């Protein structure tokens, strides 16, 4: 295997055994009296702490135990309390996980903010405040993030009345431009709204920009225009069938299968479902097709942002994506909203006649190196492109880690983090492929990482096709035996992530003994990656900010969910 061995534990990491596992007792000793109680979650242990000690605990865990990745913050309401869970991981070894559980009383849901330790917690806590209603003390900017400022109530709290009309009084619309255009104390700056209806924002993203001359003095992404209550919809669907169609709609840029895998992985681990090996190979192959298609669109639209040329590179990207979509259509029956994975396997075996299907894939793979070469000719080796993107939108690795950036954004900043290798699932650990990183930290390296990753994905697909071609006919089991109604044991909690097209796509599920999840939280990679935009863009020109936004490759459907 060409995969790198995980880094041996260093002395700085408290609570790691010689085998590289976590020693929770030692971690609990490290935190001492901060730990009030300990919980068992399926993926990790949860340390229950007091709501006024969040910052102390998180900074101890980060600085002394090496938990440098705050993957997600989940908030939820129980009958007797509110609860925020900080899902901590390590960039070096994401299998070492720890949940920090912060309960707060129902009548006074105030908890200390973790945003002082992990920058990424800022948006996560804003979302928790917005949807669930937990308030975070010392938060730098605690206001609603997904819902409008005028919204009444917190939709995921238990006593929220869904039928209550949301009335916005006229005074809220008195003069919307008055406050916005004025920048206090600085007569030389100018306020510009970029988006929400602009093709360069890749969807309905609104960027509030303050310009100083031509440079960006301050930038604030305003999201929530595409909020579709995806978490709530999943909480209202049954595990077995009804949730699976929706992951396709989070990141709708043909990355559907990767998203489905995130749900499938979390739910399968929650309910102890095995997946036949044959199905895992099919999943791996089809998911990599999804990744190529998603990266192709990312690169194509990035080129569109840079060159402003609709007819050449963008259309070449769309054309190559079309080939992949045809293959996926033959396999899954749909071009974007696949709904192909099932808990315990996949919906269908490969289409008959198999030889024809394999030939179709082989044709694509044969053509692929040449096509990639063309993209390199058009983009990376082109001086015009280099002039535009090299050394713009710089994201230093420390900032990227603090903001919880993952996927090509993190790997473009030299962070060697890929869940397919570091937290293996599916068939990835049996195959030969490399994790691509680039130390450039700029817009250019993020584009290069995507282009090279497509090459690796093609390698994975080729190996999968080899395996599938020789798979014995009587062992082609596509689904394990899963009961028609799944009722995982009550109060099981799990947080599981997969490597989606944009980065770490995590799902938190809490079961309550019924056939529907009690809490379903989506950790969207785009949401976290988008937070890094101010780091990249402040001090740059507006066109470079557009380039940085393009290189982040956000999909607003996944940012807003």
């Amino acid at each position, binding site marked *: 295997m060409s995969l790198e061995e995980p880094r041996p534990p260093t002395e700085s990491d408290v609570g790691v055994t010689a085998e590289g596992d976590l020693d929770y007792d030692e971690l609990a000793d490290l935190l001492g009296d901060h730990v009030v109680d300990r919980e068992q979650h399926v993926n990790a242990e949860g340390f229950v702490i007091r709501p006024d000690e969040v910052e102390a605990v998180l900074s101890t865990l980060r600085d002394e135990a090496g938990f440098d990745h705050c993957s997600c913050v989940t908030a939820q309401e129980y009958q007797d309390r509110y609860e925020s869970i900080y899902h901590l991981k390590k960039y070096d070894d994401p299998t070492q996980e720890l949940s920090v559980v912060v309960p707060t009383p129902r009548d006074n849901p105030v908890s200390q903010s973790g945003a002082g330790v992990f920058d990424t917690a800022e948006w996560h806590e804003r979302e928790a405040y917005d949807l669930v209603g937990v308030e975070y003390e010392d938060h730098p900017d605690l206001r609603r993030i997904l819902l409008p400022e005028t919204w009444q109530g917190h939709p995921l709290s238990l006593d929220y009345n869904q039928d209550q009309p949301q009335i916005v009084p006229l005074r809220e619309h008195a003069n919307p431009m008055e406050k916005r255009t004025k920048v206090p104390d600085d007569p030389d700056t100018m306020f510009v709204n970029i988006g929400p209806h602009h093709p360069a924002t890749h969807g309905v993203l609104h960027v509030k920009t303050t310009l100083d001359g031509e440079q960006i003095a301050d930038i604030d992404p305003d999201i929530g225009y595409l909020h579709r209550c995806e978490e709530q919809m999943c909480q209202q669907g049954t595990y077995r*069938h009804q949730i699976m169609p929706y992951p396709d709609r989070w990141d709708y840029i043909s990355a559907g299968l990767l998203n489905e895998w995130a749900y499938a992985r979390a739910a399968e681990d929650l309910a102890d479902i095995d997946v036949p090996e044959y199905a895992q190979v099919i999943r791996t192959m089809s998911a990599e097709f999804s990744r190529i298609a998603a990266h192709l669109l990312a690169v194509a639209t990035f080129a569109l942002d840079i060159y402003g040329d609709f007819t050449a590179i963008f259309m070449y990207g769309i054309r190559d994506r079309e080939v992949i979509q045809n293959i996926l259509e033959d396999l899954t*029956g749909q071009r974007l*909203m696949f709904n192909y994975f099932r808990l315990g396997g996949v919906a269908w075996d490969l*289409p008959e006649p198999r030889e024809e299907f394999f030939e179709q894939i082989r044709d694509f793979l044969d053509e692929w190196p040449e096509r990639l070469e063309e993209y390199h000719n058009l983009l990376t080796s*082109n001086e*015009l492109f*280099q002039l535009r993107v090299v050394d713009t939108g710089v994201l230093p690795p420390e900032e990227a880690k603090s903001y919880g950036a993952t996927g090509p954004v993190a790997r473009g900043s030299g962070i060697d983090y890929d869940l397919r290798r570091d937290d293996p699932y599916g068939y990835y650990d049996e195959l030969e492929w490399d994790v691509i990183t680039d130390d450039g930290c700029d817009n250019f390296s993020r584009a290069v990482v995507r282009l090279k990753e497509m090459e690796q994905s093609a390698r994975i697909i080729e190996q999968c096709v080899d395996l599938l071609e020789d798979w014995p006919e009587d062992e082609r089991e596509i689904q394990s035996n899963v009961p028609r109604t799944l009722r995982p044991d009550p109060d099981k909690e799990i947080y599981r992530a997969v490597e989606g097209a944009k980065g770490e796509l995590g799902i938190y599920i809490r079961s309550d003994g019924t056939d529907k999840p009690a809490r379903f939280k989506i950790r969207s990679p785009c949401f976290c990656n988008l937070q890094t935009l101010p780091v990249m863009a402040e001090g740059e020109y507006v066109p470079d900010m557009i380039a940085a936004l393009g290189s982040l490759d956000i999909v607003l459907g996944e940012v807003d969910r």
Partner: protein
Amino acid sequence: MLGVLKSMATTMKHALDGNTFTVEYPEEEPEVSPRFRGVHKFSQERCIWCRQCEKVCPNDTIQIVTDDQRNGEQYNLHIGQCIYCRLCEEVCPVDAIILTQNFEFVADTKDEFAYNMEELKNVPWYKDIDPLESREPDRGAWIGEGEGEVDYQ
């Protein structure tokens, strides 16, 4: 400078090679995969009114009305609300509801997309592909079934 020239050569190559990838729809009909999921077709001869499709539907697109003897009276499906996940077909024990490959449908208002049983029965096959035959070859196909006089109950 060399990179720019190489880049221009690439676009020039594509401009001159004369290959087109697109088809002139609607003059030329696109190839649709046998597994493709389009508008539903319903078979009253097959349906046993077990209501599993109604139960599994993720966004309540299907409404079934039965009388107190559990005989079916109505089968309504809003094809404009449907997300085409094919779960109804998947859970149907008798293949009474099937997603054809038909993707071309228009209406003036969204209410016209609320199909009742008769409209669902009259959904045409796309290019005479029987979806069941291509998706589950070991089950009986039902293209052409039910044409002519049938005694329903």
